[in-house]
């Protein structure tokens, strides 16, 4: 509302200024050629001065003087015969001016403007970030820019970076956290995962070292074990990889979210997979699963389908979520909807072209993905 009042005042003010000339009583018309005459007289003076200084000789000066004199006369004559304007009425012009301003202003502004959006200076937003993750991250970043030795801050930020696929930042944050707070299995494994993601799913030497370090600190870190096994697989040591994956599967709870992936890898490396205990991935909660088990087969499928659908809708709104794409793809695969699984996978790849996990998933499912060389 305040905005509209300000805009109205602005418009009215401009209109008032612009109709000012029409409100005043008619001014005398100044001689149209007065300016010209002044210029020529000035030229004459200049000529005198130049002659006085001896810059031009008398003959040249005379020529020039005659020329300027002719122009002067012509200008003065023109003035004498100049017509004067008749006093006229400005009703139409005033209306034109006063109407054009608000009409053009409003039409265009309503078309282009966003009157409901307040100004949002960053400082003010940072002071009151609310639930906006991006702002919280920005705030933490600023804090860290000023206090780069705050290890806890880096530790907090690193996984957030990783999840939003800012891998370079994530790596830096993990390294800083490790440097400042010391190594922990979670940080080392996180750093490893970041490195793997950054090199398109390949477990590089750096990453492997990091995972091994994590395992040294805490031998049962599952994601570290998984990637070590993956490293073995990628270097062609299938048997060792299978053994490692099987060991991981054995030590993990049956409903652990990574179990499915582990089983797949066991299968790929020539092992046999125990039948999965739960068909749906991490999406539904325990209670929902229990409820689902008590339903009839078709009801159960409907419920799962409903949940998957809601996940799909969520991904549509916020595609910037790698985990979500992975889950969605797998869910469709479980439901046997190959077409949708492919579509989800492709959308995910569009969002995260470099994601090794998606590519790996694609290969498992036997989907050919363009533009990905692996």
């Amino acid at each position, binding site marked *: 509302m*305040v*905005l509209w009042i*300000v805009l109205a005042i*602005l418009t009215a003010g*401009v209109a008032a200024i*612009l109709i000012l*000339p*029409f409100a*005043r009583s*008619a*001014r005398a*018309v100044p001689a*149209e*050629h*007065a*300016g*010209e*005459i*002044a*210029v*020529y*007289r*000035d030229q004459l003076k*200049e000529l005198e001065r130049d002659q006085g*200084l001896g810059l031009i000789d008398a003959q*040249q000066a005379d020529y*020039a003087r005659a*020329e300027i004199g002719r*122009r*002067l006369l012509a*200008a*003065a004559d023109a003035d004498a015969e100049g017509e004067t*304007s008749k006093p006229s009425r*400005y009703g139409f*012009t005033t209306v034109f*001016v006063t109407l*054009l*301003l608000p*009409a*053009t*202003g409003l039409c*265009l*502004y309503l078309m*282009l*403007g*966003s*009157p409901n*959006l*307040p100004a*949002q*200076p*960053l*400082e003010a*937003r940072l002071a009151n970030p609310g639930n*906006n993750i*991006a702002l919280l*991250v*920005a705030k933490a970043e*600023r804090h860290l820019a000023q206090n780069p030795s705050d290890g806890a801050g880096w530790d907090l930020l690193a996984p957030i970076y990783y999840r939003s696929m800012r891998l*370079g930042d994530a790596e830096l944050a993990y390294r800083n956290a490790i440097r400042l707070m010391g190594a922990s299995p979670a940080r080392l494994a996180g750093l490893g995962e970041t490195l793997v993601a950054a090199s398109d799913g390949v477990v590089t030497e750096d990453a492997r070292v990091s995972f091994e370090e994590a395992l040294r600190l805490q031998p049962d870190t599952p994601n570290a074990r998984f990637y070590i096994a993956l490293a073995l697989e990628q270097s062609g040591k299938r048997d060792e990889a299978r053994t490692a994956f099987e060991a991981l599967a054995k030590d993990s709870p049956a409903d652990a979210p990574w179990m499915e992936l582990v089983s797949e890898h066991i299968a790929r490396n020539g092992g046999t997979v125990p039948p999965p205990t739960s068909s749906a991935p991490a999406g539904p909660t325990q209670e929902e699963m229990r409820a689902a088990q008590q339903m009839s087969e078709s009801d159960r499928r409907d419920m799962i389908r409903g949940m998957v659908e809601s996940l799909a809708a969520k991904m549509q709104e916020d595609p910037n979520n790698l985990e979500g794409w992975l889950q969605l793809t797998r869910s469709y695969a479980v439901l046997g909807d190959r077409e949708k699984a492919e579509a989800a996978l492709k959308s995910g790849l569009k969002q995260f072209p470099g994601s090794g996990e998606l590519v790996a998933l694609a290969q498992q499912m036997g989907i050919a993905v363009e533009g990905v060389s692996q």
Partner: protein
Amino acid sequence: MIIEIGHYALVLSLAVALIVGVVPVIGARRRDTAMMALAPLGSLVLFGLVGISFAVLTWAYAVSDFSVKNVWENSHSLMPLIYKYSGVWGNHEGSMLLWLLILVFFSALIAVFGRNLPDTLKANVLGVQAWISIAFLLFILLTSNPFLRLDPAPAEGQDLNPILQDLGLAIHPPLLYLGYVGFSVSFSFAVAALIGGRIDAAWARWVRPWTLAAWTFLTAGIAMGSYWAYYELGWGGWWFWDPVENASFMPWLAGTALLHSSLVMEKREALKIWTVLLAIMTFSLSLLGTFLVRSGVLTSVHAFATDPGRGIFILCILAVFIGGAFALFAWRAPMLKAGGLFAPISREGALVLNNLILTVATATVLTGTLYPLVLETLTGEKISVGAPFFNMTFGLLMLPLLIAVPFGPLLAWKRGDFLGALQRLYLVAGLALVAGLAFYYAENGGPVMAVAGLALGFWGMFGALADLWYRANFGKAKFSVAWSRLKGLPRSAFGTALAHFGLGITVLGVVAVTTFETETVVELKQGMTAEAGGYSIIFDGMREAVGPNFTEERGHFTISRGGVTVADVWSSKRLYTARRMPTTEAGIVTFGLSQLYVSLGDPMEGGGIVVRVWWKPFILCIWGGALVMMIGGFVSLSDRRLRVGAPTRRVKAVKAALEAAE
């Protein structure tokens, strides 16, 4: 709310521009004072409104309001404050708003300082200015609106293109635009004169200060851009004949011609039609430059966005204004009376020669710039017209002009004495040759032709001094008399001499750098030495450093001569984190007018790094000369004579003046 006020102010200014473009022009036809009085008033209001919206955008940048799309796209909260400000025009939308701001700024200046103009002329001039404003306001609002919003607002911006994060670039566009857009005033005067159907010597005097101001700023802007390209791009070149550079250089050439032809018109009322045509052409070239740079027809660092819609819009503006002006010219020009006569050898003759050469040179540059575009459109063949073409054609065409420059001011109006001028310049020519030889000898090396080039530079410099020398009559009159005469010379005489002197300096710099420059590309490991220009450059090793929004690898070099350390310099490769974009920051050491330019290349296996070292003798002369030209422009502008001419409203006084004149 503030953002939206800025947006509305821009919309409202379109309405005001429409009013100023219509009412006063009708008023001028009817000789209606009230309607004409709307022109200066409306122009001031227009400036106020565009000023508000520009201030609002600047504020949005300063406080990093990322709900404004333009700010989000081109700023970053951690960027130094100065670049947040310069970021306002470091992008397409903002730079167009700056263009517009400067346009209405010039309109406001005419409104304030144009009291000496006849009412009808002023109303028409401001009306034409308003037409240009309407076109660009529509362009900004419909295709390049900087006030579009984002909801929800992102938390961090995408950063300004790193190579634009530089102090030189912070001031280069405003200066360049002051020049570019300043020529709109000459254009408006020309069109207004054509509408009014009358044009005379007084017109030339009124238009000259505006042309001069625009020319001066454009000189500064081009020199600044050239220096920026030199030290920021890291290639060591100072002029690339890049289409974008040409786009600003062509209005400068045409503007220089205009400056000289309006002199003839003011003094002798000759070359009327030509001057009007030149005024139209100069601004048309400015518009063409804007089109080339902004439409994305050309790819370069200046083409911020490539949006065909914008290109077509600017092309339409171009067609309407250039086409319209030329049509008006074709219709009205035959009605203009021809002016004074003159002999081929005379001041006028010299200025005509100047105009001839400058326009032909402009046409050459235009051909070279547009030919590839035209050819591609017609046949689909892609060619590149590069530096060799321009050096050959432009360089050769400029030769006669450079030789002729010192003659011009020594010739009298109407009928000059060529032999007299030649006699006076014998000595100058001799001195220039000696100076060229001495210079060549001191630098030892390079082709012998260089002597001619160097002498040409000195010829320009000494010629400018000789002009003042002979005007003050040194050598013939007593020193004290000559001195007082020198002091009595009008400032514009000094302005001319300074500008010509500066031209000589620039020529000298160009010849010296082209001839004596050395370039060394070596692979250096820590502790190794490269040689250039008689200096030894010792590589002390690399170090990592972190800036506010970049990280860099810096190499340190110690420079010594004859075993004595004289300077040290850092040269670095930067990585701007937000855009993950690397840049090269050259290390430059200045010795007198010469520079040592050290640029880092790629690291090699085994710890070495490729280093490129240039020795650039007298390179500062290139921009120093431009600076002197610019000072010349300002000195001329400060001349009392350009400010007088205000009408005293007593026509009777004319008679007395006339009698005195007869």
